[in-house]
């Protein structure tokens, strides 16, 4: 059952030549064969291509090559470009599009020796919190297939939680890595804005989007982050900070670190089991030697409203390129305008249309200042809240999601309720700071995972990884396997 192992475990076995990369990849393909019919984590995958990459890795291993991810299959959210592979962004509008180049995160993973594998299911253009908005049909939660896996990177979380892949990449604009990681019971990390190049990531909201890893352990996320971080001449918003070895921070020692709890995060609608798991986790961190400090993030209640103006405004501009001229499944019209309208009307799903229309509205003449500029100003206040809090603490701890995974269809007709479930994750994107979700318990019946979020300072990935790892080492939650793994 090689597919059940972690990157760290497999790397050792591969280096010692106890197992081959082909065997690892085949184990993942066998697992996909067994459970994918119930999960739909992948929109598509190319097993032959993956096995061919595995053979190349095996040759390198036989020649004594040592690379941090050599022979490790890493799955890709369907919004990241992989040369000559399909790219659909979970949407029907892109038709039979294939990528012309690798995203920088993908080429960096290749340099580290990883096998680039699969097109993981997602909410269309990363707009959603449940993967129900996929143009290819929803994915299911491996703990209970009648429930959503979270979103938008639902497929990336499911593939890891169900042992279909060893690690995956997702993207996080308002919680799209952390929330599905929480609901599926794996680790998910959103790096600081500007840590990982966005070149080759199809843009949803350019000032918020960030690529990050899903994995079975905190150490594995650190390994993937090592590989994908750093300067890229193709992304003008990358911050040229040096990339440390993130695994060096995983000492298990968090004595004296100050961890904040925000009083504003005691919101209504917080599930009792989630609340008690998070309270216990905070006590546990205190037992490990951290100092728990109360902090205030006074503008928390405005984060969701701010986000849905900023993100939709940026999306309305970014998604203008899907017009049926250079790519897309075109619907002909008498003139270009009619062609655009028909192509976009037929190709986009309901949530994408809703958000483009909202974004167009808040940017339109007469409303721009009242909505968009005001939201950008509130964004300043939200960011300032965090910078003030981080004067006092090294990290902030919160639940990742206010509830465990809900039933497929439960919130489908109420977009506002769906948006409000992002309350704990959205602020980190607005402030541009990193966040990680790790397993911290389960609900009783049905057994569903609960996630703990740690939010860090700008470029504070080492600190949140250190705390997350110290917690993981001394708790059993990450070892629990879903019924479908």
């Amino acid at each position: 059952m090689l597919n059940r192992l972690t990157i760290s475990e497999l790397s050792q076995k591969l280096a010692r030549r106890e197992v081959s990369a082909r065997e690892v990849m085949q184990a993942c393909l066998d697992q996909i064969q067994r459970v994918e019919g119930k999960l739909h984590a992948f929109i598509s995958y190319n097993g032959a291509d993956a096995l061919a990459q595995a053979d190349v890795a095996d040759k390198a291993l036989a020649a004594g090559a040592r690379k941090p991810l050599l022979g490790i299959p890493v799955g890709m959210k369907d919004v990241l470009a992989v040369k000559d592979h399909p790219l659909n962004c979970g949407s029907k509008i892109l038709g039979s599009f294939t990528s012309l180049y690798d995203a920088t995160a993908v080429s960096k993973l290749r340099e580290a020796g990883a096998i680039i594998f699969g097109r993981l299911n997602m909410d269309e253009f990363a707009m959603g919190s449940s993967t129900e908005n996929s143009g290819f049909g929803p994915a299911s939660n491996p703990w209970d297939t009648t429930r959503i896996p979270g979103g938008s990177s639902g497929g990336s979380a499911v593939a890891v939680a169900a042992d279909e892949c060893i690690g995956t990449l997702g993207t996080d604009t308002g919680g799209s890595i952390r929330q599905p990681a929480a609901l599926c019971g794996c680790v998910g990390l959103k790096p600081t804005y500007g840590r990982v190049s966005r070149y080759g990531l199809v843009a949803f909201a350019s000032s918020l989007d960030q690529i990050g890893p899903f994995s079975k352990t905190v150490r594995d996320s650190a390994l993937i982050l090592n590989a994908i971080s750093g300067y890229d001449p193709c992304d003008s918003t990358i911050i040229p900070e040096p990339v440390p070895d993130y695994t060096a921070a995983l000492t298990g020692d968090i004595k004296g670190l100050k961890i904040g709890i925000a009083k504003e995060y005691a919101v209504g609608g917080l599930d009792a089991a989630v609340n008690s798991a998070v309270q216990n986790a905070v006590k546990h961190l205190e037992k490990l030697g951290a100092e728990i400090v109360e902090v205030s993030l006074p503008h928390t209640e405005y984060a969701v409203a701010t986000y849905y103006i900023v993100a939709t405004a940026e999306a309305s501009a970014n998604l203008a390129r899907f017009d049926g001229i250079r790519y897309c499944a075109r619907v002909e019209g008498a003139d270009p305008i009619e062609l655009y309208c028909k192509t976009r009307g037929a190709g986009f799903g309901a949530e994408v249309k809703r958000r483009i229309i909202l974004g167009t509205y808040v940017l339109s003449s007469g409303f721009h200042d009242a909505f968009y500029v005001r939201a950008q100003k509130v964004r300043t206040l939200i960011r300032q809240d965090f910078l003030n809090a981080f004067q006092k603490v090294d990290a902030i701890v919160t639940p990742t999601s206010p509830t465990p995974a809900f039933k497929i269809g439960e919130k489908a007709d109420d977009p506002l309720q769906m948006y409000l479930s992002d309350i704990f994750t959205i602020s980190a994107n607005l402030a541009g700071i990193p966040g990680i979700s790790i397993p911290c318990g389960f609900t009783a019946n049905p057994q569903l995972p609960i996630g703990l979020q740690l939010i860090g300072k700008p470029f504070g990935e080492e600190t949140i990884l250190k705390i997350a790892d110290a917690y993981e080492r001394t708790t059993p939650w990450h070892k629990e396997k879903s019924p479908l793994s």
Partner: protein
Amino acid sequence: MPTEVDVKYVAHLARISLTAEEEQKFGAQLKNILGYIEKLNQLDVSHIEPTAHAVPLVNVFRKDEVRPSLSNEDALRNAPAKANGLFVVPKIVE
């Protein structure tokens, strides 16, 4: 004052054709969302600078040099309609 959105007009600005059913549904949902968003009016932001990017950005320059780029064939690879090395579009000028 939950704002009434002229969905048909805004959808045209966004170049998206909607069915009558979608217009009605989105109208009601957007009214609901905008009602929630009005929350932001509770704050006095008159002296606050807007944030466009969370991280301060500086202009990034590079030398203007000829480098390898997409071939004509690759650039047209995903085109829904092409001819003579060009994208085909509906007639624009009479």
